[in-house]
C-alpha cells in the first residue's frame, strides 16, 4: 500500500467516537470473580416455547428469505400485539417492518427522515447509539439534558429551548436506558403539544415498554395527534429476553415505512427467517412468562433502590427498564473514577454515567438484571467501598449486616 493504513479509512469512520462502554468492558473482562451490574440485558434465557418454535422452523427447513418487511404472519402478530397492548393500529401489509434489532430500526428511521445537517433532539442521559446513528445518517445530534431533581423526566420547556430552525425530530426513550425513568400519559401529552407546535417528528424507542412497573405504559403513537408524526420502535430483546436474536420491529405511517423499506431491502433484505418463527410464538404464547419476568424485575428494583439509598447513594425510583441511576457525587469522585475504583477494589462492575451524555456525569448505571444473591453481594461490596470513602449513611443500623 502506498500510504499509512489510516489513509484508507473513511473520515466518517474516523470521526466516530468509540463507545465509553467498550472501555469498561475491556477493564472488567480481564478480571476474575467480578459481579457485573453493567449488563444491559435480561438475566433470563429466552422462554423455551420461543426457542422451541425456532428450532422447529429450522427442522422444517425454513432457511430461505422472507418478504423484505418480514413474514406476513409475524407482521400480523405484531400488528395485533401493538393494538392489544398499546392501543395503536398498524396495517401489517404496509406499516410494519421486522428489523435486525431495535438498533437497526433506529438506523432506518434516521436515514429515512434526515437531510444533511438536520438536527435531532436526544433526551439525555441516553442509550449510547443514538448520537452516532444520527451523525451517520448526516444529521446533527442535539442533547436535551435532564436532571435527577425531577427524576430525569424531560420537560416541554427543556425540549422547546433546544429547538432550532433545523430541528427535524425528537428522539424519546421511556422507560429509559440508563435512568430507568418512564413518562406517563399526561407527561407525554405535554411533549406532544410542542411537537405539534413546531411541526416535528418523533422517533420513539419503546424497547422497554414491557418493563414498566408502576404506571401503565403509554406509547407515544397513542397520544392524540401523534400517530402520523411517530416512528414507533420496539423489539423482542428486553421484554421477551431475546437480545441475542437480534429481532426488532418498527411501525409508522405507510409513507415512512415505504421509505425505510427501500433502504432496508438493499442493506439487509430481511431479518433471519427461523428467528422470525420464534418471534411469532413469542407474541402468541408468552404472555405469562413476560409478566413473571416483569414482576421479578420490579421486586429487584425495589430492593436495589432502597438499599442504595440506605448505603448512602441517592437514587430515584425508576418506573421501568432494569437500571437504576444513583448519584455518586457524595464521594467526590467522577463517574469514571468511581466505576474504576469500585471495579479494582471490590470487583463490582457498573457503567459510569458520563458515557450516556454529559448530564450523566456524577451518576453510575447499575443493572439489576442479576440474581438476588448476586445483587446482595454486590451491594455489600459497594457499601464496603463507600465506607473507605467515608460514606456511612446506614440509616437503619445494621441494615446490610444480615443479608
Amino acid at each position, binding site marked *: 500500500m502506498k500510504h499509512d493504513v489510516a489513509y484508507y479509512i473513511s473520515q466518517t469512520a474516523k470521526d466516530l467516537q468509540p463507545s465509553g462502554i467498550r472501555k469498561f*468492558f475491556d477493564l472488567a473482562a480481564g478480571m476474575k470473580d*467480578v459481579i*457485573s451490574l453493567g*449488563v444491559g440485558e435480561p*438475566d433470563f434465557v429466552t422462554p423455551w416455547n420461543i426457542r422451541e418454535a425456532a428450532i422447529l422452523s429450522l427442522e422444517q427447513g425454513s432457511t430461505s428469505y422472507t418478504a423484505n418487511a418480514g413474514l406476513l404472519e409475524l407482521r400480523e402478530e405484531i400488528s395485533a400485539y401493538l393494538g392489544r397492548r398499546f392501543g395503536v393500529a398498524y396495517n401489517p401489509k404496509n406499516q410494519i417492518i421486522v428489523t435486525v434489532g431495535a438498533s437497526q430500526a433506529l438506523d432506518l428511521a434516521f436515514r429515512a427522515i434526515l437531510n444533511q445537517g438536520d438536527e435531532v433532539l436526544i433526551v439525555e442521559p441516553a442509550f449510547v447509539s443514538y448520537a452516532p446513528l444520527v451523525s451517520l445518517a448526516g444529521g446533527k445530534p442535539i442533547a436535551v439534558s435532564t436532571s435527577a431533581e425531577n427524576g430525569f423526566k424531560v420537560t416541554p420547556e427543556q425540549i422547546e429551548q433546544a429547538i432550532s430552525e433545523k430541528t427535524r425530530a425528537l428522539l424519546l426513550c421511556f422507560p429509559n436506558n440508563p435512568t430507568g425513568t418512564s413518562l406517563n400519559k399526561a407527561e407525554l401529552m405535554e411533549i406532544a403539544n410542542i411537537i405539534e407546535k413546531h411541526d416535528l417528528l418523533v422517533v420513539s424507542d419503546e424497547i422497554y415498554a414491557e418493563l414498566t412497573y408502576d404506571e401503565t405504559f403509554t406509547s407515544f403513537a397513542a397520544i392524540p395527534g401523534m400517530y402520523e408524526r411517530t416512528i414507533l420502535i420496539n423489539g423482542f430483546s428486553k421484554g421477551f429476553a431475546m437480545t441475542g436474536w437480534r429481532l426488532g420491529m418498527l411501525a409508522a405511517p405507510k409513507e415512512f415505512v415505504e421509505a425505510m423499506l427501500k433502504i432496508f431491502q438493499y442493506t439487509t433484505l430481511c431479518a433471519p427467517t427461523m428467528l422470525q418463527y420464534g418471534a411469532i410464538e413469542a407474541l402468541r404464547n408468552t404472555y405469562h412468562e413476560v409478566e413473571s419476568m416483569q*414482576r421479578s424485575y420490579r421486586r429487584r428494583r425495589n*430492593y436495589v433502590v432502597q438499599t442504595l439509598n440506605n448505603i448512602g447513594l441517592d437514587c430515584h425510583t425508576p418506573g421501568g427498564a432494569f437500571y437504576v441511576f444513583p448519584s455518586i457525587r457524595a464521594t467526590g469522585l467522577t463517574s469514571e473514577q468511581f466505576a474504576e475504583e469500585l471495579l479494582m477494589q471490590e470487583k463490582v462492575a457498573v457503567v459510569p454515567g458520563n458515557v450516556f451524555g454529559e448530564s450523566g456525569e456524577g451518576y453510575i448505571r447499575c443493572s439489576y438484571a442479576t440474581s*438476588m444473591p448476586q445483587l446482595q453481594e454486590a451491594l455489600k461490596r459497594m457499601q464496603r467501598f463507600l465506607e473507605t470513602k467515608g460514606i456511612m449513611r446506614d440509616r437503619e443500623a445494621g441494615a446490610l449486616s*444480615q443479608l
Partner: protein
Amino acid sequence: MKLNSEELEILKIIEENHKASAETIALMALTSEETVKNTIKKLEDEKIIMSYPTLIDWTKVDGQESIIAMIDVKVTPKRGVGFDDVAERIYRFPEVSSLYLMSGAYDLSITIEGKTMNQIAAFVSEKLSTIDNVVSTTTHFMLKKYKHDGVIFDGGADDKDRRMVVTP
C-alpha cells in the same frame, strides 16, 4: 382464605427466594420487616406455608442412593370407608413420600422411597395389597429424575450466565 395483595406478594417472593431474610423480602415487597414477619407467621399458622423443604440430589452422594417407585392403586370404597380413609392408612407409612387421589384408570397414586427393591416389594405385598379396599396395584420403578418440583436435575444449561460483563 383470601389474602390481600401484600400478603400474596410476600408469599410469591418466598416461593422464589426461600433463603431471603425478612428484611430483604420487605425491601422487595415495599413493606416493613414487621409486616413480613407477621405475615409469614400467619401463613405458617394457617398452614398455607406448609414447610420449607430442601431439594437434594441424593444420587450424587455415595452410599445414599435410594430407590423410588410410583404405584397406581385401585380402590373400592365401601360404606363408611371412603377414599380418604384408605388414603390415611397408606400415607401414615413413613416410606410413602407422596400420595394423590387421581381421576382416570386408577384411584390413588403413591410415591414410595426405599433402600432396596426388596423393601419396596415387601411394602407392596405385605402392607399395601393387604388393605381391605385395595383391589389392585401397579408398580413403576423410577429410572432417572430429570425434573422435580420445577427444578431440572443436572440439566442446568440455562443456569449458566453467558452474558458479557458489560453491554450497552
